[in-house]
Protein backbone atom coordinates (compact mmCIF):
# COMPACT_ATOMS: atom_id res chain seq x y z
CA UNK A 1 0.00 0.00 0.00
CA UNK A 2 1.37 3.42 -0.94
CA UNK A 3 1.50 6.51 1.29
CA UNK A 4 -1.79 8.16 2.30
CA UNK A 5 -2.79 11.57 0.94
CA UNK A 6 -1.79 13.13 4.28
CA UNK A 7 1.63 11.43 4.14
CA UNK A 8 2.09 12.56 0.53
CA UNK A 9 1.32 16.15 1.53
CA UNK A 10 3.79 15.98 4.42
CA UNK A 11 6.47 14.55 2.11
CA UNK A 12 5.85 17.27 -0.47
CA UNK A 13 5.99 19.96 2.21
CA UNK A 14 9.23 18.53 3.66
CA UNK A 15 10.71 18.36 0.14
CA UNK A 16 9.70 21.97 -0.60
CA UNK A 17 11.27 23.13 2.69
CA UNK A 18 14.48 21.24 1.97
CA UNK A 19 14.63 22.69 -1.56
CA UNK A 20 14.08 26.19 -0.15
CA UNK A 21 16.86 25.79 2.42
CA UNK A 22 19.23 24.57 -0.30
CA UNK A 23 18.24 27.50 -2.52
CA UNK A 24 18.99 29.92 0.34
CA UNK A 25 22.44 28.42 0.81
CA UNK A 26 23.04 28.63 -2.94
CA UNK A 27 21.96 32.27 -2.89
CA UNK A 28 24.74 32.97 -0.41
CA UNK A 29 27.28 31.91 -3.04
CA UNK A 30 25.70 33.69 -6.01
CA UNK A 31 25.27 37.06 -4.33
CA UNK A 32 28.58 38.46 -3.17
CA UNK A 33 27.32 41.15 -0.80
CA UNK A 34 24.02 41.61 1.01
CA UNK A 35 23.17 44.89 2.66
CA UNK A 36 20.12 45.49 4.87
CA UNK A 37 18.74 49.04 4.93
CA UNK A 38 16.84 49.76 8.13
CA UNK A 39 15.50 52.55 10.24
CA UNK A 40 13.67 52.63 13.52
CA UNK A 41 11.28 55.35 12.41
CA UNK A 42 9.12 55.62 9.30
CA UNK A 43 9.41 58.44 6.81
CA UNK A 44 13.16 58.94 7.05
CA UNK A 45 13.70 57.91 3.42
CA UNK A 46 14.72 54.26 3.61
CA UNK A 47 13.40 53.40 0.16
CA UNK A 48 14.99 56.54 -1.28
CA UNK A 49 18.29 55.55 0.27
CA UNK A 50 17.95 51.89 -0.78
CA UNK A 51 17.22 52.78 -4.40
CA UNK A 52 19.92 55.47 -4.32
CA UNK A 53 22.53 53.04 -3.02
CA UNK A 54 21.53 50.41 -5.58
CA UNK A 55 21.69 52.87 -8.48
CA UNK A 56 24.93 54.38 -7.27
CA UNK A 57 26.48 50.89 -7.09
CA UNK A 58 25.12 50.13 -10.58
CA UNK A 59 26.60 53.42 -11.85
CA UNK A 60 29.97 52.11 -10.70
CA UNK A 61 29.52 49.01 -12.85
CA UNK A 62 28.28 46.51 -10.27
CA UNK A 63 25.43 44.08 -10.86
CA UNK A 64 22.79 44.97 -8.28
CA UNK A 65 19.40 43.81 -7.02
CA UNK A 66 16.89 45.36 -4.63
CA UNK A 67 14.67 43.21 -2.47
CA UNK A 68 11.74 45.32 -1.25
CA UNK A 69 10.68 43.59 1.96
CA UNK A 70 8.15 46.26 2.85
CA UNK A 71 5.20 43.91 2.34
CA UNK A 72 2.43 46.30 3.34
CA UNK A 73 3.85 49.50 1.84
CA UNK A 74 6.01 48.52 -1.15
CA UNK A 75 7.15 51.55 -3.14
CA UNK A 76 10.54 50.64 -4.61
CA UNK A 77 9.03 49.69 -8.03
CA UNK A 78 7.48 53.17 -8.42
CA UNK A 79 10.81 54.83 -7.61
CA UNK A 80 12.57 52.54 -10.09
CA UNK A 81 10.18 53.30 -12.94
CA UNK A 82 8.57 49.85 -12.74
CA UNK A 83 5.06 50.89 -11.79
CA UNK A 84 2.45 48.42 -13.12
CA UNK A 85 5.05 45.81 -14.17
CA UNK A 86 4.47 42.11 -13.48
CA UNK A 87 6.98 39.44 -12.51
CA UNK A 88 7.84 36.61 -14.86
CA UNK A 89 7.62 33.09 -13.40
CA UNK A 90 9.26 30.15 -15.14
CA UNK A 91 9.58 26.58 -13.84
CA UNK A 92 8.58 27.68 -10.34
CA UNK A 93 11.25 30.40 -10.19
CA UNK A 94 10.40 34.10 -9.97
CA UNK A 95 12.40 36.34 -12.29
CA UNK A 96 12.96 39.90 -11.00
CA UNK A 97 11.90 42.97 -12.98
CA UNK A 98 14.74 45.16 -14.27
CA UNK A 99 14.71 48.88 -13.50
CA UNK A 100 17.07 51.77 -14.26
CA UNK A 101 20.72 50.84 -14.93
CA UNK A 102 19.76 47.15 -15.02
CA UNK A 103 18.99 46.97 -11.29
CA UNK A 104 16.87 43.88 -10.58
CA UNK A 105 13.85 44.44 -8.35
CA UNK A 106 11.58 42.15 -6.36
CA UNK A 107 8.66 43.66 -4.50
CA UNK A 108 5.23 42.79 -3.20
CA UNK A 109 3.94 45.65 -5.36
CA UNK A 110 4.38 43.46 -8.46
CA UNK A 111 1.91 40.95 -7.04
CA UNK A 112 -0.90 43.33 -6.12
CA UNK A 113 -3.99 43.70 -8.31
CA UNK A 114 -3.74 47.48 -8.12
CA UNK A 115 -1.89 50.00 -5.98
CA UNK A 116 -4.90 50.61 -3.72
CA UNK A 117 -5.09 46.96 -2.64
CA UNK A 118 -3.91 46.60 0.95
CA UNK A 119 -1.92 43.61 2.15
CA UNK A 120 -3.58 42.49 5.38
CA UNK A 121 -1.36 39.71 6.63
CA UNK A 122 -0.32 38.51 10.03
CA UNK A 123 3.30 37.70 10.86
CA UNK A 124 3.50 34.02 9.80
CA UNK A 125 2.12 34.74 6.32
CA UNK A 126 4.55 37.64 5.89
CA UNK A 127 7.33 35.30 6.99
CA UNK A 128 6.37 32.79 4.28
CA UNK A 129 6.30 35.50 1.61
CA UNK A 130 9.71 36.82 2.66
CA UNK A 131 11.23 33.34 2.56
CA UNK A 132 9.78 32.90 -0.93
CA UNK A 133 11.23 36.24 -1.99
CA UNK A 134 14.61 35.07 -0.79
CA UNK A 135 14.68 31.46 -1.94
CA UNK A 136 12.39 31.26 -4.97
CA UNK A 137 13.78 34.23 -6.91
CA UNK A 138 16.19 33.73 -9.79
CA UNK A 139 18.56 36.59 -8.97
CA UNK A 140 21.45 35.20 -11.00
CA UNK A 141 24.95 36.38 -10.10
CA UNK A 142 24.89 39.69 -8.21
CA UNK A 143 27.63 41.84 -6.74
CA UNK A 144 25.23 43.52 -4.30
CA UNK A 145 21.73 42.83 -3.01
CA UNK A 146 20.21 45.82 -1.21
CA UNK A 147 17.31 44.85 1.06
CA UNK A 148 14.79 47.57 1.87
CA UNK A 149 12.73 47.07 5.03
CA UNK A 150 9.67 48.64 6.60
CA UNK A 151 10.44 50.73 9.69
CA UNK A 152 11.12 48.98 12.96
CA UNK A 153 12.83 45.91 14.29
CA UNK A 154 10.19 43.23 13.96
CA UNK A 155 9.30 40.23 11.77
CA UNK A 156 10.83 41.36 8.50
CA UNK A 157 14.47 42.09 9.42
CA UNK A 158 14.44 39.21 11.91
CA UNK A 159 13.30 36.74 9.22
CA UNK A 160 15.86 37.96 6.71
CA UNK A 161 18.67 37.90 9.28
CA UNK A 162 17.74 34.33 10.12
CA UNK A 163 17.21 33.08 6.56
CA UNK A 164 19.80 34.78 4.38
CA UNK A 165 23.35 33.53 4.85
CA UNK A 166 26.38 35.83 5.14
CA UNK A 167 24.73 39.22 5.39
CA UNK A 168 27.46 41.86 5.22
CA UNK A 169 25.67 44.26 7.51
CA UNK A 170 23.01 46.86 8.13
CA UNK A 171 22.85 50.46 7.02
CA UNK A 172 20.80 52.51 9.48
CA UNK A 173 19.00 55.48 7.93
CA UNK A 174 18.06 58.41 10.11
CA UNK A 175 17.09 62.04 9.93
CA UNK A 176 18.63 64.54 12.32
CA UNK A 177 15.69 65.05 14.70
CA UNK A 178 15.62 63.44 18.17
CA UNK A 179 12.63 61.14 17.52
CA UNK A 180 14.34 59.51 14.53
CA UNK A 181 17.65 59.27 16.37
CA UNK A 182 16.00 57.60 19.34
CA UNK A 183 14.58 54.90 17.03
CA UNK A 184 17.90 54.54 15.20
CA UNK A 185 19.51 53.64 18.48
CA UNK A 186 17.02 50.74 18.73
CA UNK A 187 18.04 49.57 15.25
CA UNK A 188 21.71 49.61 16.24
CA UNK A 189 21.00 47.58 19.39
CA UNK A 190 18.86 45.21 17.31
CA UNK A 191 21.70 44.55 14.91
CA UNK A 192 24.05 43.84 17.83
CA UNK A 193 21.51 41.36 19.14
CA UNK A 194 21.43 39.53 15.78
CA UNK A 195 25.22 39.69 15.38
CA UNK A 196 24.82 41.42 12.03
CA UNK A 197 27.42 44.17 11.79
CA UNK A 198 26.30 47.77 11.52
CA UNK A 199 27.99 49.09 8.39
CA UNK A 200 27.08 52.56 9.54
CA UNK A 201 24.56 55.35 9.93
CA UNK A 202 23.40 57.54 7.05
CA UNK A 203 21.84 60.90 7.83
CA UNK A 204 19.16 61.65 5.25
CA UNK A 205 17.46 65.04 4.69
CA UNK A 206 20.54 66.52 6.22
CA UNK A 207 20.44 70.04 4.84
CA UNK A 208 18.85 72.02 2.03
CA UNK A 209 21.22 73.95 -0.18
CA UNK A 210 20.03 77.14 -1.81
CA UNK A 211 22.12 79.09 -4.27
CA UNK A 212 21.71 82.22 -6.34
CA UNK A 213 23.35 85.24 -7.87
CA UNK A 214 23.69 88.79 -6.56
CA UNK A 215 26.28 91.55 -6.76
CA UNK A 216 29.90 90.36 -6.68
CA UNK A 217 31.63 90.06 -3.31
CA UNK A 218 28.88 91.32 -1.06
CA UNK A 219 27.89 90.09 2.38
CA UNK A 220 24.46 88.52 2.71
CA UNK A 221 22.33 87.48 5.64
CA UNK A 222 19.84 84.67 5.00
CA UNK A 223 17.19 83.64 7.51
CA UNK A 224 16.99 79.85 7.81
CA UNK A 225 14.40 77.63 9.54
CA UNK A 226 13.58 78.85 13.03
CA UNK A 227 14.91 82.30 12.18
CA UNK A 228 18.53 81.17 12.34
CA UNK A 229 20.69 83.75 10.54
CA UNK A 230 23.33 82.60 8.05
CA UNK A 231 25.99 85.16 7.10
CA UNK A 232 27.62 84.45 3.74
CA UNK A 233 29.43 86.32 0.99
CA UNK A 234 28.97 86.11 -2.77
CA UNK A 235 32.01 85.33 -4.93
CA UNK A 236 33.57 87.55 -7.59
CA UNK A 237 30.89 86.44 -10.08
CA UNK A 238 28.15 87.23 -7.59
CA UNK A 239 27.30 83.57 -6.95
CA UNK A 240 26.43 82.35 -3.45
CA UNK A 241 25.33 79.10 -1.87
CA UNK A 242 24.27 78.18 1.66
CA UNK A 243 23.05 74.95 3.27
CA UNK A 244 20.14 75.35 5.68
CA UNK A 245 19.47 72.76 8.34
CA UNK A 246 15.80 71.97 7.88
CA UNK A 247 15.71 69.79 10.97
CA UNK A 248 18.86 69.79 13.10
CA UNK A 249 22.48 69.21 12.31
CA UNK A 250 24.89 66.36 13.08
CA UNK A 251 22.46 64.05 14.91
CA UNK A 252 23.34 61.01 12.78
CA UNK A 253 27.04 61.57 13.31
CA UNK A 254 26.70 61.96 17.07
CA UNK A 255 24.49 58.82 17.33
CA UNK A 256 27.04 56.81 15.32
CA UNK A 257 29.81 58.16 17.56
CA UNK A 258 27.85 57.37 20.72
CA UNK A 259 27.36 53.72 19.68
CA UNK A 260 30.83 53.31 18.21
CA UNK A 261 29.56 52.55 14.68
CA UNK A 262 30.77 54.23 11.47
CA UNK A 263 29.11 57.36 10.13
CA UNK A 264 28.65 56.83 6.39
CA UNK A 265 27.71 60.36 5.41
CA UNK A 266 24.97 62.90 4.92
CA UNK A 267 22.46 63.00 2.09
CA UNK A 268 21.02 66.39 1.23
CA UNK A 269 17.38 67.39 1.41
CA UNK A 270 16.56 67.26 -2.29
CA UNK A 271 13.01 67.93 -3.55
CA UNK A 272 14.15 66.25 -6.77
CA UNK A 273 13.81 62.91 -4.98
CA UNK A 274 10.11 63.53 -4.46
CA UNK A 275 9.57 64.47 -8.10
CA UNK A 276 11.80 61.65 -9.30
CA UNK A 277 10.05 59.13 -7.04
CA UNK A 278 6.64 60.18 -8.32
CA UNK A 279 7.72 60.21 -11.97
CA UNK A 280 9.66 56.94 -11.71
CA UNK A 281 12.92 58.57 -12.81
CA UNK A 282 15.28 58.46 -9.87
CA UNK A 283 17.33 61.59 -9.13
CA UNK A 284 20.55 59.63 -9.69
CA UNK A 285 19.33 58.67 -13.17
CA UNK A 286 18.03 62.12 -14.15
CA UNK A 287 21.06 63.97 -12.76
CA UNK A 288 23.97 61.49 -12.56
CA UNK A 289 26.51 64.21 -11.79
CA UNK A 290 24.32 66.21 -9.41
CA UNK A 291 24.97 66.92 -5.74
CA UNK A 292 22.73 64.06 -4.58
CA UNK A 293 24.43 61.52 -6.87
CA UNK A 294 27.82 62.66 -5.56
CA UNK A 295 26.60 62.36 -1.94
CA UNK A 296 25.34 58.83 -2.65
CA UNK A 297 28.63 57.85 -4.29
CA UNK A 298 30.46 58.95 -1.12
CA UNK A 299 28.14 56.87 1.07
CA UNK A 300 28.64 53.87 -1.25
CA UNK A 301 32.42 54.22 -0.95
CA UNK A 302 32.11 54.32 2.85
CA UNK A 303 29.93 51.18 2.79
CA UNK A 304 32.37 49.36 0.50
CA UNK A 305 35.27 50.13 2.81
CA UNK A 306 33.24 48.85 5.79
CA UNK A 307 32.35 45.63 3.95
CA UNK A 308 36.03 45.10 3.32
CA UNK A 309 36.73 45.14 7.06
CA UNK A 310 33.74 43.16 8.34
CA UNK A 311 34.45 39.69 6.97
CA UNK A 312 34.11 37.01 9.63
CA UNK A 313 35.87 33.66 9.66
CA UNK A 314 32.67 31.58 9.66
CA UNK A 315 31.89 28.43 11.58
CA UNK A 316 33.05 24.96 10.57
CA UNK A 317 30.50 22.28 11.44
CA UNK A 318 31.65 18.68 11.26
Amino acid at each position, binding site marked *: MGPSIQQQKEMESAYANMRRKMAMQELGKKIKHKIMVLSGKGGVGKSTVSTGLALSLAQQGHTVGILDIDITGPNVPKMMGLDGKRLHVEQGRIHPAQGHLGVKVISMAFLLEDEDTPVVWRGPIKLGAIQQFIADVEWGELDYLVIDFPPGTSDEPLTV*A*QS*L*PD*IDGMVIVTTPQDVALLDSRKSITFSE*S*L*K*VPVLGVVENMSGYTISGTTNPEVNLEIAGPGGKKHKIASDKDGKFSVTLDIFKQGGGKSTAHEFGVPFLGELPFDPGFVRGGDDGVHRIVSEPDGASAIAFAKVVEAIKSQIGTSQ*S*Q*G*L*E*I*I
Partner: protein
Amino acid sequence: MSETPELIRLERHDTTMNLTYADGGEFVISYDDLRHSCPCAKCSPLRNEDESSRSLRRQIESLPAEKPKVRTIGKYALAFDWNKGCSSGIYRFERIWALANNQDPDDGRSYVHGAW
Protein backbone atom coordinates in the same frame (compact mmCIF):
# COMPACT_ATOMS: atom_id res chain seq x y z
CA MET B 1 27.96 39.43 30.51
CA SER B 2 31.55 39.23 29.31
CA GLU B 3 32.29 39.20 25.54
CA THR B 4 31.72 35.76 23.97
CA PRO B 5 34.60 34.63 21.75
CA GLU B 6 33.80 33.56 18.20
CA LEU B 7 32.90 29.88 17.81
CA ILE B 8 34.99 28.62 14.89
CA ARG B 9 34.51 24.84 14.96
CA LEU B 10 31.77 22.48 16.10
CA GLU B 11 32.55 18.76 15.89
CA ARG B 12 29.66 16.37 16.46
CA HIS B 13 30.24 13.02 18.19
CA ASP B 14 27.73 10.34 19.19
CA THR B 15 26.64 11.84 22.53
CA THR B 16 28.65 15.05 22.80
CA MET B 17 29.94 17.90 20.65
CA ASN B 18 33.36 19.56 20.83
CA LEU B 19 33.56 23.31 20.46
CA THR B 20 36.60 25.34 19.50
CA TYR B 21 36.64 29.11 19.98
CA ALA B 22 38.76 31.72 18.24
CA ASP B 23 40.67 32.46 21.46
CA GLY B 24 41.85 28.83 21.51
CA GLY B 25 39.34 27.63 24.13
CA GLU B 26 38.07 24.05 23.68
CA PHE B 27 34.94 22.69 25.34
CA VAL B 28 32.66 19.65 25.34
CA ILE B 29 28.87 19.82 25.71
CA SER B 30 26.76 16.68 26.06
CA TYR B 31 23.65 16.54 23.91
CA ASP B 32 21.59 15.84 27.04
CA ASP B 33 22.76 19.12 28.60
CA LEU B 34 22.19 20.91 25.31
CA ARG B 35 18.65 19.58 24.94
CA HIS B 36 17.80 20.21 28.58
CA SER B 37 18.67 23.88 28.08
CA CYS B 38 16.46 24.22 24.98
CA PRO B 39 15.39 27.89 24.87
CA CYS B 40 12.06 27.30 23.10
CA ALA B 41 8.76 28.46 24.61
CA LYS B 42 7.70 24.88 25.31
CA CYS B 43 10.84 23.58 27.06
CA SER B 44 11.92 26.77 28.88
CA PRO B 45 8.96 27.05 31.32
CA LEU B 46 9.64 23.44 32.38
CA ARG B 47 12.95 24.58 33.88
CA ASN B 48 11.22 27.12 36.12
CA GLU B 49 10.37 24.46 38.72
CA ASP B 50 12.78 21.79 40.01
CA GLU B 51 10.30 18.93 39.61
CA SER B 52 9.31 19.75 36.01
CA SER B 53 12.97 20.39 35.20
CA ARG B 54 13.93 16.94 36.46
CA SER B 55 11.04 15.43 34.51
CA LEU B 56 12.27 17.20 31.34
CA ARG B 57 15.75 15.83 31.97
CA ARG B 58 14.45 12.25 32.38
CA GLN B 59 12.41 12.61 29.21
CA ILE B 60 15.49 13.78 27.27
CA GLU B 61 17.69 10.98 28.67
CA SER B 62 15.13 8.41 27.53
CA LEU B 63 15.42 9.54 23.91
CA PRO B 64 17.60 7.46 21.55
CA ALA B 65 21.17 8.76 21.17
CA GLU B 66 21.61 10.60 17.89
CA LYS B 67 23.79 13.21 16.22
CA PRO B 68 21.80 16.36 15.44
CA LYS B 69 21.84 18.31 12.21
CA VAL B 70 23.26 21.75 13.01
CA ARG B 71 22.04 24.91 11.28
CA THR B 72 23.33 28.43 11.67
CA ILE B 73 20.63 31.03 12.32
CA GLY B 74 21.93 34.22 10.82
CA LYS B 75 25.17 35.17 12.53
CA TYR B 76 23.85 35.01 16.05
CA ALA B 77 22.65 31.49 16.85
CA LEU B 78 22.54 27.77 16.07
CA ALA B 79 19.61 25.39 15.78
CA PHE B 80 19.80 21.63 16.29
CA ASP B 81 17.49 19.28 14.39
CA TRP B 82 16.77 15.94 16.05
CA ASN B 83 14.75 13.05 14.68
CA LYS B 84 12.98 12.71 18.04
CA GLY B 85 12.28 15.32 20.69
CA CYS B 86 12.22 19.10 20.48
CA SER B 87 14.08 20.85 17.65
CA SER B 88 12.48 24.27 18.10
CA GLY B 89 15.11 26.04 20.17
CA ILE B 90 17.30 28.76 18.70
CA TYR B 91 20.53 28.75 20.72
CA ARG B 92 22.25 32.12 20.74
CA PHE B 93 26.04 31.84 20.76
CA GLU B 94 26.06 33.40 24.26
CA ARG B 95 23.87 30.53 25.45
CA ILE B 96 26.21 27.89 23.98
CA TRP B 97 29.17 29.69 25.55
CA ALA B 98 27.43 29.62 28.96
CA LEU B 99 26.73 25.88 28.56
CA ALA B 100 30.32 25.22 27.52
CA ASN B 101 31.49 26.98 30.69
CA ASN B 102 29.04 25.07 32.93
CA GLN B 103 27.11 28.25 33.66
CA ASP B 104 23.34 28.49 33.94
CA PRO B 105 22.30 29.56 30.41
CA ASP B 106 19.11 31.08 31.90
CA ASP B 107 21.25 33.09 34.33
CA GLY B 108 18.95 32.13 37.21
CA ARG B 109 15.94 33.83 35.60
CA SER B 110 12.55 32.16 35.30
CA TYR B 111 11.11 31.97 31.83
CA VAL B 112 8.33 34.45 31.09
CA HIS B 113 6.41 34.23 27.83
CA GLY B 114 7.16 37.12 25.51
CA ALA B 115 10.44 38.15 27.14
CA TRP B 116 13.02 37.67 24.43
